[in-house]
């Protein structure tokens, strides 16, 4: 039975499950659990991810779990050491992603999707008791349920036309089957906040703490991209997803970048920035083929560092509004410098990793014979620099305000270290990856 539902050798998957149970089990202790639950969650996830990664190739399966776990680590590391609920929730969310990665069957895919999403709604709702937060969580929940419903509907349609729930078989070119895949595609597109399924995004990211937003925009987007790739591989290279996806991706990027230009909240700027990057990923998924797969994986690893870095800078500086950045270079020069590195990387300026990621997408788009997609990418590169330049300008060029911003609660000592790791990682990937990765091998 198991071998039908998930890929062979699912032992590491069990390790993820055992981690969740172990974290929950700390709740039985009489004393307040302290940091135990957090430590168990982090250790368990890292071990499980290490067990499941295959150095040869990331493929479309277990190789992705280290990416998901890496995106969850900042959140785990910065949790206040009380209670086992939040660590358990995030561990089960990662478990859901792992199920997604292993899935070869639509049931498993759906199970993974829901297991990933439900803890997210709860985590978001637990952020604070403010009305705003609950509203955002509810919005996220309802629209997420809609996406799950569409996925189920697509599943049913697919079963009607093929008589099977397996992902390994080729999907026939009948309209009902193709429609089924489009419906199912709505679920990952929703997770990636593709236009026009993005309306929940600004509220949710605004309500989330920086480290939760970082998890939502790295791991969750990676899982969404993986799901999208699985579906587009199932559909084959000649399906009409190969032009729907690039079109959706281009629209997503453009809308996100235009909306980001006029935001005052840093959370919203970064939310739209992550939406723009998700648009790039969708476009990339639409170029099809093995190349898209490897390029997406490299893109996501680079994106993990730069995006998490940006969110963690917000945490380290206690920054909420764009104007809070003023005078950052005078107040905290090193933090400002790291901020510049991650923002320039997000903008795709060499020598950072973001540039290499952008280059890969250009190559994939042109190799897939979609010059209009390359033109959209170029236009969006420029639009995006419009607000990234503003973020750098506020931090470096604007004078500090007369009175310093209200003293924030001191962030954990770990935050600056994590910021350093992320920024240096983004820079290092930009210097090392281009020379190390044989790009042309992907472009067959």
């Amino acid at each position, binding site marked *: 039975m198991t071998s039908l539902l998930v890929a062979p050798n699912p032992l590491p998957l069990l390790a993820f499950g055992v981690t969740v*149970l172990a974290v*929950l089990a700390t709740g*039985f202790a009489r004393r307040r659990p302290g940091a135990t639950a957090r430590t168990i969650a982090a250790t368990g996830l890292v071990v499980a991810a290490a067990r499941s990664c295959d150095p040869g190739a990331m493929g479309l399966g277990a190789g992705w779990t280290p990416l998901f776990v890496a995106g969850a680590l900042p959140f785990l590391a910065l949790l206040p050491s009380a209670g086992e609920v939040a660590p358990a929730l995030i561990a089960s969310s990662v478990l859901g992603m792992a199920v997604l990665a292993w899935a070869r069957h639509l049931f498993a895919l759906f199970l993974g999707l829901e297991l990933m999403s439900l803890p997210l709604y709860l985590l978001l709702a637990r952020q604070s008791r403010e009305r705003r937060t609950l509203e955002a969580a509810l919005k996220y929940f309802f629209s997420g349920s809609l996406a799950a419903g569409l996925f189920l509907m697509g599943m049913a349609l697919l079963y009607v036309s093929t008589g099977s729930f397996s992902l390994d078989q080729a999907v026939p070119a009948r309209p*009902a089957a193709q429609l089924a895949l489009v419906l199912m595609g709505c679920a990952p597109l929703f997770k990636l906040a593709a236009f026009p399924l993005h309306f929940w995004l600004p509220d949710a990211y605004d309500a989330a703490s920086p480290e939760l937003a970082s998890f939502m925009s790295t791991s969750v987007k990676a899982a969404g991209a993986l799901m999208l790739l699985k579906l587009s591989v199932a559909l084959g290279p000649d399906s009409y997803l190969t032009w729907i996806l690039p079109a959706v991706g281009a629209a997503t990027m453009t809308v996100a970048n235009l909306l980001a230009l006029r935001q005052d909240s840093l959370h919203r700027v970064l939310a739209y920035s992550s939406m723009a990057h998700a648009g790039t990923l969708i476009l990339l998924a639409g170029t099809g083929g093995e190349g898209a797969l490897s390029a997406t994986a490299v893109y996501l690893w680079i994106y993990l560092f730069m995006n998490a870095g940006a969110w963690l800078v917000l945490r380290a500086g206690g920054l909420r509004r764009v104007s809070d950045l003023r005078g950052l270079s005078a107040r905290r020069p090193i933090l400002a410098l790291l901020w510049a590195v991650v923002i320039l990387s997000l903008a795709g300026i060499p020598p950072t990793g973001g540039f290499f990621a952008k280059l890969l997408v250009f190559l994939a788009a042109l190799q897939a014979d979609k010059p209009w997609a390359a033109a959209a990418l170029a236009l969006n590169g420029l639009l995006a620099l419009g607000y990234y330049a503003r973020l750098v300008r506020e931090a470096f060029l604007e004078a500090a305000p007369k009175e310093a911003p209200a003293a924030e609660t001191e962030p954990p000592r770990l935050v600056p270290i994590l910021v350093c790791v992320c920024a240096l990682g983004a820079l290092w990937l930009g210097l090392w990856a281009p020379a190390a990765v044989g790009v042309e091998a992907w472009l067959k």
Partner: protein
Amino acid sequence: MGLAIDLLVVLALVAALSLASRLLGPRPRMEGDKGMPYETGMPPLAQPGAHPWASYYRFAVLFVIFDVDLAFLAPWLVQGGRPDAGMLVALTAFLGLVGFTLAYVWRKGALEC
């Protein structure tokens, strides 16, 4: 193409039937017992649309866990023949999980009102 025709036929049928019943059927009179909401034959205690108290949902969700549990166990009970070792392990693990969950929510006090 076939799908489109199917859709059209279905829509047309639905529209035609409901229109016909509207035009031809007797006007229902909504008064007395006939106008009351149906709830297992008992006279309703509250106005329709009133919310149950919050922990009702908690119990409902927990109940569903055991309901689903039963749905998984039933085929095993009725399939006859001797279960093989793999099935036994799978079901024990499954029951263990459900038991763990029950213990956890109990410990957390989720079963109290």
